[in-house]
């Protein structure tokens, strides 16, 4: 939410462009991307802005090439980003797996569209599984941030680069086509001021032993397991310290909506309208989808008689909700798919029906 009542430092920006500008504010100077709707504004914005700040923009020959350019740039120690939408993110899964195994930091943006396959170009939330369950091969996780406003598209972009460098991990910003395309007022964030040493980066073996960036561990036979144990420790640490969520009117909520991104905006509207009618509704909104904010959700759902997860899919986040809450038989689902938006009136109708 905007902290200032003073509007003079507010500007109107499209979600995709706000995210791109915030990446630059965060010190990202390398962007590799490929056109795909509905995120085309990101590469277009970067093509214009990167040269202005002495950075590098490169339109790669495919999303696959782009993620591998990200891999190289991250290996060299730079803050680097790529963006795409669902089918393009599928192409990147191999690269993201390698990045996880090699423990490289980077930011990947998925402006989700309807799927599966070529789907359509409207916003959706159909890639939650892909984002939070790994997507590529192997036992790994990415941090997944889920903005719900243009302001958050910017704020979370700045956070993403810090988390990536701090933990040497991919941070996936999971937006959707509506968020990417809408224009809202925002205050551009400031840089965090955090710096991170990268002694492992490939900067040339001057005055030190050669560095290697690799995910291959052949010898001895336990070497790969050792790497996986290291990764696992990292993920445990992140799960402990980096969960983020918003609990909106949940203290006394009898009916709890759980959502993220664009569907959470619709839910918030529904909560406000229900409250006006005297119904104790609340919203628990993910800001990190991984690590999943289970503890905060348990707290928010403590008094709830019913928990309604609302998604722009036919039920992906609901699995994490059921795994996290006590008495998961309380959990119900409402969703639309293929780029269609859930409706406030339908949410209200269902909540009211629970009361009967």
């Amino acid at each position, binding site marked *: 939410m905007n902290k200032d009542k003073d509007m003079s430092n507010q500007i109107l920006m499209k979600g995709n462009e706000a995210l791109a500008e915030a990446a630059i504010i965060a010190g990202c100077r*390398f962007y590799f991307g490929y056109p795909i709707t509905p995120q085309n504004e990101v590469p277009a914005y970067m093509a214009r802005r990167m040269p202005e700040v002495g950075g590098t923009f*490169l339109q790669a020959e495919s999303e696959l090439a782009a993620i591998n350019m990200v891999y190289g740039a991250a*290996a*060299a*120690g730079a803050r680097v980003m790529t963006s795409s939408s669902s089918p393009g993110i599928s192409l990147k899964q191999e690269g993201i797996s390698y990045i996880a195994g090699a423990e490289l930091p980077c930011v990947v943006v998925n402006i989700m569209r309807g799927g599966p396959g070529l789907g359509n170009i409207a916003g959706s939330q159909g890639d939650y599984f892909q984002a939070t369950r790994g997507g590529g091969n192997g036992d790994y996780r990415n941090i997944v941030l889920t903005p719900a406003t243009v302001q958050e598209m910017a704020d979370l972009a700045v956070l993403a680069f810090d988390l990536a460098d701090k933990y040497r991990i991919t941070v996936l910003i999971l937006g959707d086509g509506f968020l990417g395309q809408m224009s809202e007022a925002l205050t551009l964030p400031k840089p965090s001021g955090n710096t991170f040493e990268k002694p492992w980066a490939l900067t040339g073996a*001057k005055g030190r032993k050669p560095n290697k960036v690799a995910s291959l561990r052949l010898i001895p036979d336990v070497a790969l397991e050792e790497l996986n144990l290291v990764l696992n420790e990292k993920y445990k640490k992140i799960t402990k310290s980096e969960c983020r969520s918003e609990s909106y009117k949940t203290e006394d909520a009898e009916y709890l909506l759980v959502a993220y991104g664009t569907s959470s905006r619709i839910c918030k509207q529904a909560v406000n309208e229900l409250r006006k009618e005297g119904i104790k509704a609340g919203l628990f909104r993910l800001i990190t989808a991984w690590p999943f904010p289970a503890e905060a959700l348990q707290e928010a759902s403590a008094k709830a008689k019913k928990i309604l997860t609302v998604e722009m899919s036919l039920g992906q986040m609901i699995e994490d909700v059921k795994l996290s809450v006590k008495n998961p038989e309380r959990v119900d689902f409402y969703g639309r798919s293929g780029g269609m938006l859930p409706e406030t009136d339908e949410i209200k109708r269902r909540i009211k029906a629970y009361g009967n």
Partner: protein
Amino acid sequence: METKKFKYVYDRPEALVDKTTHYCPGCGHGIVHKLLAEVIDELGVREKAIVVAPVGCSVLIYDYMNFDGCEASHGRAPAVATGLKRVNPDSVVISYQGDGDLLAIGTAEAIHAANRGENFTTIFINNAIYGMTGGQMAPTTMEKQVTKTTPTGRDPMDVGYPIRGCELLNTLEAPVFIERCSIYDFKSTLKTKKAIKKGIKNQIEGRGYSFIEVLSTCPTNWGMKPQKAAEWVRDVMEPYYPLGNFRDN
């Protein structure tokens, strides 16, 4: 014990790690790794060098080179090299790739990095077969050559003809150096070293993209002793993949 005074006129380059490689006896990789290390030493760029490894027998090249090394997924080395070089233009980035890496799965990345004129050096090891995975057909496998996936010999009517990488890249505007060489004998090996040196020098001088294709051997998967394999390169591969310089700008 030597009583006369002498000096070493051939010794291990500093850029080559003193480690027995996992390569088969007579494998061309061992020779080319050595040539690359010698060139890196002679040009004094060991502390700036970064080798990008392919997926193939030489996936562990970074264990044998005494400088920074980076793994890449199969075929993506030119994209990884692009990222590395764009971040640090002063580094000396070598993309070392095999025939599947460069001409099958990685064709798009290979062509586009060359097309952009990325200022790094590609060493392309063409041994007409997929060695690491046990001897399957490569895009550069010769017509009628028997491999695990062409057990009755490569049939061009079914799987196409071998691809000539140098000629393909030679249709692009940007590359500044394209040469095909070999390591089947002493003379050809010296020419390969010269070509690699030119490719690295071009990079140091910021001149653009250099491509060196090396016709190499895979004695194990060809089912030949190393010397016979070297002769097969000369007698069967070279007529189809002519040696020589295609471009030297």
